[in-house]
C-alpha cells in the first residue's frame, strides 16, 4: 500500500508550489492586458506619458514575469516527478491541453515578450503595439488551456477508461474543450487576474498621489486601473464560477461543502452566511442564515434542490459497492480472460471504478472490503468542510471589498478628484493584498474541494503519486522551500525598490527624483 506520509508530502509539495506560482500568474495576466491598453492609448493619442506608463509598469511586469516563468516549470515537471501514476492514468487526456498550451499560447507569449522589452527601437509604433497585444492574448490563451486541463480534473468529460491500457482515453475532444466547468473557470480566473493587475496599478499609483509625486503619471494610471478593474471585478462576481457547481458530482459535493449544507433542504435553500461547520457532528454551530439565498445563487432557480452532504455520502456508498464489482471484473480482464461477455460485464459498472479504487486506501483486496472499510471510504468522499466553508467566504469578502474600492475609485477618477481623497488613496493602498487573498482562497476551495479525487470520480489522489520514498519528497520540499524563499525576497526587494522610484527609474529626466522640486506634468 502507498504510504500516507508519501501522499501527504506529495500533496504538500504540489500545494506549496502551485500556490507560490499563482502569486505571479494573475499579476502577469492582468498587467499584460493593462500594458496593452496603455500602449493603445499611447498610439492613439501620441502622448509620451502613456509610453512612459507602458515602460514603467512593464518593468514591474518583467520582474514578476521572470519568477512566474521559473516557478511554472516546477508545475510542468511535477506531474511526472511526483504524480507518475496520475500521469500514466490520465496523460492521454490531460497531457493534450498542456502540450497545446505550449504550442498555441506559451510560444506566442514568450516570443513576443522578448520583442516587447527589446523591440522599442526596432519596431514601428504599430508593430510594437501588436506585439504587446499578442503577449496579452498569449497569456490569456495560456490560462485557457491550463484551465481546460484543470476543469477536466473537476469534471472529467469526453473520456473513458480502457482496460487494455489501464488508463483514461479521449473519446470526445470537443467535450473536453467545451467542458462547462472549464469555461466558467476560465472566465472567472482570467477576470480575477485582471482585477489583480488593476489593484496593483491602482494601489501603487495611489501611493504616488499620497506622496504628491509624478501626479500626471499616477493620475492616468489610476484612471485606467479603476475603469478596467471595475469591469473586471464585476465579471468576477457576476460570472463567478458558482454556476459551475451544478455540473458533475464532485462539483455538487464541493458546493455542499462550501455551504456546509449537511441535509438536503427544500428549494430554494437558505444560505449560511457564517457559522462553524463541524465535521464530527455533521452540523454547523452558530449558523446565521439568509433564507432562499443559496438556492437562487447556486442553482439560478427557485425549485432546484442543492443536495446535502449526508445524502451525498449515501449515494457515494452505493457507488463504492458498485465500484467493488467493477474492480473485480477488471481483475478478470487484466488476468487475460477478455471474452466479449466479460468485457460487457465490466462495461456495465465501469463508471464506478473510481469509487472502488477509494477502498485501496484501506485494503489491497478491494472486492472483499469489509462494511467498515466501505463506510470509511464513503466518508472520505467529503472534503474538509470547515476550511472550504471559510476559504470561500474569505474569497467572496475580498471580492466585495474590491468591488467597493473600484466603484469609489472609478467615480473619483471620472470626477478628477481622486488625489484629494486621501482616505480613498489609503484604502486603495491597503487593498493591495486583497486580490491575492481572493485568488489563493479561491484555489483552495477549488482544489481542496475536489478531494479525495485527483480526477473527479475517476482517480483518487492517494493512488496518483509516484513510487518515491518519503525522504526524497521531504528533501525536495525543503530544497524548494529554501530556494523559493530566497527568490521571493529578491523579487520583493526589486519590486519595492522600483515601485518606490516610480517612473524616475526610466531615466527620461521628466520625473520626480530627477528634479529638484516636484513638478506637475
Amino acid at each position, binding site marked *: 500500500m502507498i504510504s500516507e506520509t508519501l501522499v501527504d508530502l506529495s500533496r504538500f509539495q504540489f500545494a506549496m508550489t502551485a500556490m507560490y506560482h499563482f502569486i505571479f500568474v494573475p499579476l502577469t495576466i492582468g498587467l499584460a492586458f493593462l500594458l496593452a491598453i496603455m500602449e493603445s492609448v499611447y498610439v492613439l493619442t501620441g502622448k509620451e506619458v502613456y509610453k512612459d506608463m507602458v515602460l514603467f509598469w512593464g518593468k514591474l511586469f518583467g520582474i514578476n514575469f521572470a519568477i512566474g516563468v521559473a516557478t511554472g516549470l516546477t508545475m510542468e515537471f511535477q506531474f511526472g516527478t511526483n504524480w507518475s501514476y496520475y500521469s500514466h492514468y490520465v496523460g492521454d487526456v490531460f497531457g493534450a491541453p498542456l502540450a497545446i498550451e505550449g504550442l498555441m499560447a506559451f510560444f506566442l507569449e514568450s516570443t513576443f515578450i522578448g520583442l516587447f522589452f527589446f523591440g522599442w527601437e526596432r519596431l514601428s509604433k504599430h508593430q510594437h503595439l501588436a506585439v504587446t497585444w499578442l503577449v496579452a492574448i498569449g497569456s490569456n490563451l495560456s490560462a485557457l488551456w491550463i484551465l481546460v486541463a484543470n476543469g477536466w480534473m473537476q469534471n472529467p468529460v469526453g473520456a473513458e477508461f480502457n482496460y487494455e491500457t489501464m488508463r483514461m*482515453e479521449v473519446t470526445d475532444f470537443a467535450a473536453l474543450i467545451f467542458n462547462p466547468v472549464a469555461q466558467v473557470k476560465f472566465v472567472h480566473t482570467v477576470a480575477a487576474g485582471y482585477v489583480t493587475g488593476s489593484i496593483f496599478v491602482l494601489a501603487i499609483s495611489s501611493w504616488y498621489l499620497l506622496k504628491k509625486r509624478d501626479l500626471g503619471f499616477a493620475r492616468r494610471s489610476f484612471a485606467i486601473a479603476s475603469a478596467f478593474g471595475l469591469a473586471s471585478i464585476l465579471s468576477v462576481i457576476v460570472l463567478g464560477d458558482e454556476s459551475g457547481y451544478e455540473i458533475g458530482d464532485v462539483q455538487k459535493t464541493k458546493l455542499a461543502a462550501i455551504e456546509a449544507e449537511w441535509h438536503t433542504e427544500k428549494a430554494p435553500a437558505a444560505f449560511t452566511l457564517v457559522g462553524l461547520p463541524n465535521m464530527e457532528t455533521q452540523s454547523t454551530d452558530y449558523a446565521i442564515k439568509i433564507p432562499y439565498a443559496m438556492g437562487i445563487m447556486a442553482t439560478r432557480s427557485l425549485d432546484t434542490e442543492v443536495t446535502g452532504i449526508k445524502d451525498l455520502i449515501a449515494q457515494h456508498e452505493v457507488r463504492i459497492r458498485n465500484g467493488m464489482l467493477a474492480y473485480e471484473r477488471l481483475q478478470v480482464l487484466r488476468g487475460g480472460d477478455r471474452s466479449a461477455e466479460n468485457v460487457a460485464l465490466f462495461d456495465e459498472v465501469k463508471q464506478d471504478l473510481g469509487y472502488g479504487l477509494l477502498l485501496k486506501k484501506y485494503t489491497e483486496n478491494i472486492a472483499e472490503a469489509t462494511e467498515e472499510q466501505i463506510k470509511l471510504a464513503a466518508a472520505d468522499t467529503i472534503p474538509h468542510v470547515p476550511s472550504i466553508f471559510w476559504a470561500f467566504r474569505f474569497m467572496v469578502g475580498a471580492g466585495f471589498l474590491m468591488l467597493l474600492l473600484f466603484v469609489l475609485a472609478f467615480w473619483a477618477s471620472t470626477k478628477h478628484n481622486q488625489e484629494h481623497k486621501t482616505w480613498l488613496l489609503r484604502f486603495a493602498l491597503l487593498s493591495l493584498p486583497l486580490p491575492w487573498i481572493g485568488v489563493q482562497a479561491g484555489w483552495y476551495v477549488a482544489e481542496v474541494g475536489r478531494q479525495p479525487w485527483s480526477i473527479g470520480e475517476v482517480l483518487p489522489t492517494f493512488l496518483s503519486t509516484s513510487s518515491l520514498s518519503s525522504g526524497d519528497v521531504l528533501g525536495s520540499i525543503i530544497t524548494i522551500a529554501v530556494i523559493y524563499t530566497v527568490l521571493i525576497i529578491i523579487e520583493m526587494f526589486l519590486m519595492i525598490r522600483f515601485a518606490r522610484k516610480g517612473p524616475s527609474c526610466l531615466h527620461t529626466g521628466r520625473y520626480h527624483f530627477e528634479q529638484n522640486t516636484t513638478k506637475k506634468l
Partner: protein
Amino acid sequence: MFDYETLKLIWWVLVGVLLIGFALTDGFDLGAVILMPLIGRTDSERRVVLNTIGPHWEGNQVWLVTAAGALFAAWPIVYAASFSGFYWAMMLVLFALFARPLGFDYRSKLDNPNWRSRWDWALCLGSFVPALVFGVAFGNLFLGVPFMLDNTMRISYTGNFWGLLNPFAILAGLVSLTMLMTHGATWLMMRTDKQVLQRSRTATQILSTAYLITFIAAGLWLWFGIEGYSVISVIDFNGAIDPLSKVVEQNNPGWMANYTQYPIMRIAPIVGIIGGVLALLGATINRSALAFLGSSLAISGTICTAGFALFPFLMPSSIDFASSLTMWDAVSSHKTLGIMFIAAAIFVPIILVYTLWSYIKMWGTVKVADIDGDPHGLY
C-alpha cells in the same frame, strides 16, 4: 486520417523535432551563458553576451516546455517513468533552470558589482547543469533504466541518483555539454565583434574539437562496449497497446542493429561529425555563419544518432526487459495522437514564422559601445 502505426511514427519524429528545436534554439543560449564568465571579461562584455540572447531566450525555452508537454501527451508513461525515475536529476535541472529567467531579468537592474557577479555565476551554473544532465539522462537510456511496471501499470524504480553518474553516461553528458557550448560560441561569433568575437572563435575551436572527440568516443563505446536491447516478439504496430505483452532481450549488436539494417541511418552520425568539423573550420577561417551552420548540424546529427540507435526503444528497462517502453507501446491513444498531430501541424509552422520574424527584427552585431550607451534599457 492516418492509421495508428503511421501516427506513432509521426510522433516519434515530432518529439525528435521538438528536441532538436530545443537544442538548436535554447542550446545556443545555454551555451553562450555557460561561456559568459570566460568570454566576457568586463561587465560590458558580459552584457554583450546577455543582450545577444536577451530578446530570444524566453521563446527558446518554450521549446523545452513544449517538448516536455508533448512527451506528456504523446508518451504519457515515458514522461511518468523518466521524470519520477530520474527524480533528483530532474529536480537538479529544475533548480538550475530557476536561475535563468531571474538572472536574465534581474542581473542588470542594479549597478552593484557583487549583485551582478552573483547572478553571472547563477546564470552560468543554471545553464551548465541542464546541458550536462540532459546528456547524462540520454546516456542512461542506452544502459537501460532500473524500473518495472506492475499489472496496474504502476512504475517502480530501484535505482538512485548516484547510479546515473556512471562513466558512459558522464561521457554522454560531456557530448551534450560540449555540443551546446560549441553552439553558444558560434552564436556569439555571429552576433559580436572585437575581443568578444575573438574569444568566441577560440572557444569554438577548442569546444568543437572536444565535441568531436567525445562524440566519436561515445559512439565507439556504444558499438563495442555496451549491450543493446531488441524486441524479439512480433509487434502489433496498429493494435492495442500493452508494453508488458512483448519479449525483449539484451544482445549485441543491439544499438548498432538499426545501422546495419537501415544503412541510410548512418547519415546521422556522419552529419554530426561533419557539423563538428565545419564549426572548427568556420572558427579557424573566421566565417561565423559557417561555424553556426556546423554547430547546428552537429546538434541535429547527434540527437538523430541517439534516436536512431535506440529505435524503437524510448526507455529500456534493465531489471525487467518486458517493461521496456517503445514508441509502439508507450504511446497515447490513436485519437489523442491524431488531435495532437493536427495541433502541431497548425501551430509549428506559425511558431516558426513569428520566431523567424523576431530574429530578423533583432538581428545585428551587439557592440560594447551600444551597451555602454544604454545603461538602463538593456539586460
